[in-house]
């Protein structure tokens, strides 16, 4: 039942989001025909291309036509490259997904111990130092952090390449080297948010009666922290991870541009600048589906993290 409910919600979200994005894109000043033909095209050539692409049709007619195609799995063709939008997205999705997953692994892998350590020593020097570090990471723009990391790890130490992308299918080692700096850059901001969230929730949990009882029973502080306090304190963290994953599918554009990665974010932004409406629409569908799917998965994780939710 929950799956059907989610699917209905996904359809509504898709309809609203795709129509709004279609309308907004068409309200943008600029003409896709000029982007396709360049400056030197004649009035007649422009009119012909406009007709060929159906751009002379009313907005609603074009939207419904696109929607009809979408139902049959046809995302349309890019105005600029004339490639199927679905294959363009499919080519780039693995890059963005790998970047996101790697960034989340780095962020969570560091945020959990950092958050736990800060909560355990709340108010002390370590907590204050970690708080300061978190704020420093939060307030550093990714393009600054990225350039700094390239300077240190690629230019000075030369342990990883500065830019570029090697697919997993070509070489796993080179794939890891090409994803590590972008993932750290992207993950650092998330790390700070996750660590702060976990620290706050953990401090609250550690003041619960059952924790006091556990202490009274003589359980070691480490066991209390990792076995009894961490899981119920992770609800906010799981929510944040879910929201971030969905939002970042299209939001990695700065990282992808900075490091020369051929991901979905870069494709969508480039397509907005070149008024490649159908490619942008395809991207919007992908992000919407991704967002809803990730948050559906997050709902399932809630139950696993906290049995009280499952029972409720």
């Amino acid at each position, binding site marked *: 039942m929950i799956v059907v409910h989610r699917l209905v919600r996904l359809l509504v979200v898709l309809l609203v989001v795709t129509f709004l994005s279609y309308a907004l894109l068409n309200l943008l000043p*600029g003409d896709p025909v000029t982007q*396709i033909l360049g*400056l030197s095209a004649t*009035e007649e050539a422009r009119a*012909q291309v406009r007709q060929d692409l159906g751009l002379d049709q009313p907005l609603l007619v074009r939207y419904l036509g696109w929607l009809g195609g979408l139902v049959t799995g046809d995302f349309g063709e890019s105005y600029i490259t*004339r490639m199927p939008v679905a294959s363009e997205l499919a080519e780039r999705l693995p890059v963005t997904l790998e970047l996101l997953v790697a960034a989340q692994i780095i962020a969570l892998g560091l945020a959990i111990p950092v958050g736990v350590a800060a909560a355990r020593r709340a108010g002390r020097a370590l907590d204050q130092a970690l708080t300061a570090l978190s704020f420093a990471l939060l307030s550093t723009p990714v393009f600054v952090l990225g350039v700094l990391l390239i300077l240190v790890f690629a230019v000075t130490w030369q342990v990883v390449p*500065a830019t570029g992308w090697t*697919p997993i299918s070509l070489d796993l080692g080179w794939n890891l080297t090409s994803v590590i700096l972008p993932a750290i850059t992207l993950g650092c901001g998330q790390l700070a948010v996750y660590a702060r969230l976990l620290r706050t929730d953990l401090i609250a949990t550690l003041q619960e009666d059952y924790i006091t009882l556990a202490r009274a029973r003589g359980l070691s502080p480490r066991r209390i922290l990792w076995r009894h306090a961490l899981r119920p304190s992770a609800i906010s963290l799981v929510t944040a991870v879910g929201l971030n994953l969905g939002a970042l599918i299209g939001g990695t554009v700065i990282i992808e541009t900075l490091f*020369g990665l051929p991901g979905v974010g870069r494709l969508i932004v480039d397509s907005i600048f070149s008024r490649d409406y159908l490619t942008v629409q395809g991207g919007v569908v992908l992000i919407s589906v991704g967002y809803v799917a990730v948050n559906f998965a997050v709902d399932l994780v809630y139950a696993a993290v906290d049995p009280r939710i499952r029972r409720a």
Partner: protein
Amino acid sequence: MKRWRTPATLMLAAAVMLACSGQRPVAAPQAGASGPVQGGRLVYGLSADANGFNPVTDQFAGQSYSMAGTIIETLTAVDANGGWKPNLAESLTPNERHDEWTIKIREGISFSDGIGLTGDVVRANLEAQKASPLNAAVLAPVKAIELVDPMTVKVELKQPWVAFPYYLDAQVGMIVPPASLKDPKAASLKPVGTGPFLFKEYVPDNRMVVTRNPRYWRQGLPYLDEIEFRILPDSQTRAQTLDAGGIDAMGTSRDEDLTKYGAQQDAYTVHRSEGMAVAEYMFMLNTTVAPLDDLRVRKALAHATDRETVISTLRGGLTEPADGPWSKDSKWYAEGGDYPAYDLDKAAALVKEVEAEKGPIRFEMISTPDPNTMQGIELAQDMWRKAGIDVTIKQADQADLINRAVTGNFAATVWTQFSAPDPDGEYIWMHQAYSQPVGKVSLNFTRFKDKQLSDAFDVGRTDPDEAARKKAYATVQQRLRELVPYVFIDHLNTGSIVARTKVHGIGEHRLPDGEKGLPLTGSPIPYHPFAQLWVDAQ
């Protein structure tokens, strides 16, 4: 179990570090005593991806020429003196009136798919280009294309066109095999041509790899085994990638790159655009809308613009002030027609005169939102305000700005243009026949109509005598200085290629008949041929 955890973790970390470190394996070139050596691999950083590699259907920019130019060749080429020379063509011969050109194709050239290059293939390509909406305006003077014999094509024109061969050095002169004409989509993704390299791999927004064509028609070329073009849009990380050794060469237009790499001559070479390849940075004015339809206002703007200050502030003093569309080191540059020099008093006097008749002078200037461009506009805004001209700035992205220019929905805008190898390349942008009212598509964006200037462009197009052409283009420059449809700022000769010293041959290529080729072409970031590039044996 627990005691093994730390060593196992360390070993795993070491394995990951090992996998993640070291240089990408490359083919070792053969050593040569001196001069070019065969072999080796070049990694070349580009600032943007191409829209596609089909010269008939895809709009080409500098990066498209860099990548596709390794595979697809043109009928003509431009030499170091700016003259056109045959390339795939063996000769191009005009009739006496220059309204008919006979193109004889070189014998013994084949496409990499095995099809021979013939007159019929060239005719089919030119027909396709003429029918393409991309190039219809450029090839408007072409009346008919006929096959004279298996290796000869005749192009009939509606009017004499002296500079026609120059156009065959660009997109319209790139020759692809019949299969590419039949399947334009495949040709967009996997280019095929007669060129020195063969297509190997293309990953959009990431890289294109080409390998040596062992059956290339020019003996001994190319020198390199492989070229990888990396698409690195961020100029700072592109430079950092060069520093880190991730790429061997890159295109740039950043002043700081010129200064930085120019000071490291033992490690890098810097090749700057020169002559006609240099574009001009300017403020383009719509001469059909108030207040810029008044010549006094346009002159006041030019008088109030201190080009030297703009250059020292924005370009680190690296460029030259411009007073016309062609740079001073080009053979087409001519003095005369006094471009309004910086003189705030004159500007203020003109403004007062206009204000007395028509009231305050106000208009909107369009700019792309990038910080460097905005800085320049704000500088100009401040200079013009001192003369009494009130300018508001409106930001627009590239697509919006270009569309406004084409349809005339602007008063003034920042603009960069004019890097064609021959002045005739600017014909459609300035001739009055291409000027249309606001609201209609006009290739003459300033909508400026001047009979004297247009007649001079016609002479330049139709008269084969170089002295007569020079005189005509001197008139063009004179009229532009007198009538100020553009407020010229500087010649953007910061467009450069920076390479590690192990890379040789940039800007030193020879054309098939032995002449030295034009070193760099295009703007803002230039491009060049790759067949004669070579890397040091290591």
